[in-house]
């Protein structure tokens, strides 16, 4: 059931993206997210598609793997599309389904928002797929450093993120185990009446949450026991190194972003 979730997954490799500095990747992804939100014409989305496909091509991640992992999100995307398609009343009426009229503007809106979601997930997945969780949080922490002056707890935020990211796969593995155990006891997750399915969901969620709290408690204890006391004066075992190719990559993304802004009108 959860075999192909790719959110938070890291796929070790040696592609150009894998070797980029985590900070450079974070900056590039931030820029790309901005671009994705700015795009609102067909030309804009066309350019976003070209850009994202380009990034995918240098990531070395197999396409089949990505698409399979996006499958659960596809439901969300289709749902958003339908919602917009039916509720936006702009342009001409194309078709009438019962009490609803579908307008051309609605279809366009739906497609745009759907594509937007798709690209957002794709871009952020490419980031986590090619960056080890440690590098990712180190990068994040350093980028949040300047905000410390304004009281942003950079280290704590980074730590929280890294713990969350670290435990997403664990949570899914655990869920899979519990699903198996309850299925063996006859719980019906995919068939059966609404009541049976609800019952099955409860039999999954209760143990899952109890285990998660237990694990959080254990982790906190273990960290305290080993003398963890926040980020003060901690040094890093592995330092991030910013190379020229990182500057170049960021520049390319930035320039493309600006160009796209003028090009899409």
């Amino acid at each position: 059931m959860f075999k192909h979730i790719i959110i938070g997954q890291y796929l070790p490799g040696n592609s150009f993206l894998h070797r980029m500095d985590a900070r450079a990747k974070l900056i590039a992804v931030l820029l790309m997210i901005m671009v994705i939100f700015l795009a609102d014409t067909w030309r804009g989305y066309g350019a976003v598609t070209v850009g994202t496909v380009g990034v995918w091509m240098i990531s070395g991640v197999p396409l089949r793997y990505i698409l399979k992992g996006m499958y659960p999100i596809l439901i969300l995307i289709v749902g958003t599309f339908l919602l917009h398609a039916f509720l936006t009343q702009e342009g001409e009426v194309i078709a009438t389904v019962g009490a609803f009229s579908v307008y051309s503007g609605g279809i366009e809106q739906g497609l745009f928002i759907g594509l937007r979601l798709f690209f957002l997930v794709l871009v952020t997945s490419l980031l986590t797929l090619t960056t080890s969780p440690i590098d990712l949080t180190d990068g994040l922490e350093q980028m949040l450093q300047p905000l410390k002056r304004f009281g942003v707890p950079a280290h704590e935020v980074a730590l929280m993120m890294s713990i969350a990211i670290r435990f997403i796969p664990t949570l899914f593995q655990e869920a899979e185990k519990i699903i198996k155990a309850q299925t063996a006891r006859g719980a019906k997750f995919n068939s059966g009446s609404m009541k049976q399915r609800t019952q099955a969901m409860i039999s999954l969620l209760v143990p899952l949450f109890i285990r998660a709290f237990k694990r959080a408690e254990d982790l906190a204890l273990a960290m305290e026991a080993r003398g963890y006391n926040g980020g003060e004066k901690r040094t890093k075992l592995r330092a991030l190194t910013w190379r020229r190719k990182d500057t170049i990559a960021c520049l390319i993304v930035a320039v493309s972003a600006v160009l796209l802004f003028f090009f899409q009108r």
Partner: protein
Amino acid sequence: MRIVFEKTSYTYMENTPLEKRALHEVSTTFPSGEIIAVIGRTGSGKSTLVQHINGLLRPSQGKVTIGERTVDPKTKKKQIQKLRENVGMVFQYPEHQLFEETVEKDIIFGPLNAGTSEQQIKKQVPMLIQRVGLDESLLHQSPFHLSGGQMRRAAIAGVLAMNPQVLILDEPTASLDPKGKQEIIELLKEWHEEKRLTIIIVTHDMEEVADIASRAVVMHDGRIAMEGHAQEIFEQQGRLEALGLDLPPRLKVLSYISVKTGVPFSSWSLSPEKAATEVNASRKGNKDV
């Protein structure tokens, strides 16, 4: 029920870069009504193997026959459902599957799903809870207030309540104290004597199953490395050690005595008293000659 594996292969995460082949063309038969031990190093594929028996995993290639039913890569999920009512499975750390408000409700979850009436099953609960060695007064407590060992027993009771014809236990005694281990094994032995069902126990620890298993299967790297009568398997110490398995201390002691004194023991799971008797008997025998 007899269980037959025919060239069964299984691959986790098929068609992804994380693909992992966990079973390679495994063929073996678990005869009906026996207690079978599945042993092997960590990661050797024991859990993967036994999860095929109740259709939690479907083979990627080959097939598995359980009684009358066959599961192969094309078997539909609907058909598997029936199988689950006959095959009970106690997972590694079964206490993680407890979820109901009371121990009693948790125990009857399985039978209710299988369509047994609540009245009928509730009558059996006091017997069950006793069999697993828990006090009846615990029935109306939250399962989360029990100790680890008690949770384990409650979870096992929940599977026994389904009265399966095949019972699979994946490391049922992991992280219990020696006395707790012994009690779980005893409970399985009694249940087997009474119901004559097929029991499959996955374990690292040969000693704990030496007394009750009649057959043993040794897994190594997703393949079956050895199989046969439990006694005969446990005797082949050289091979077991080569497969990275720790020999039970008792077996080591007995085999050392056997080599030094030349006494052929009748079994490798003798208690110290019985072993001493056999050594004495054989000495007397020798003198008489």
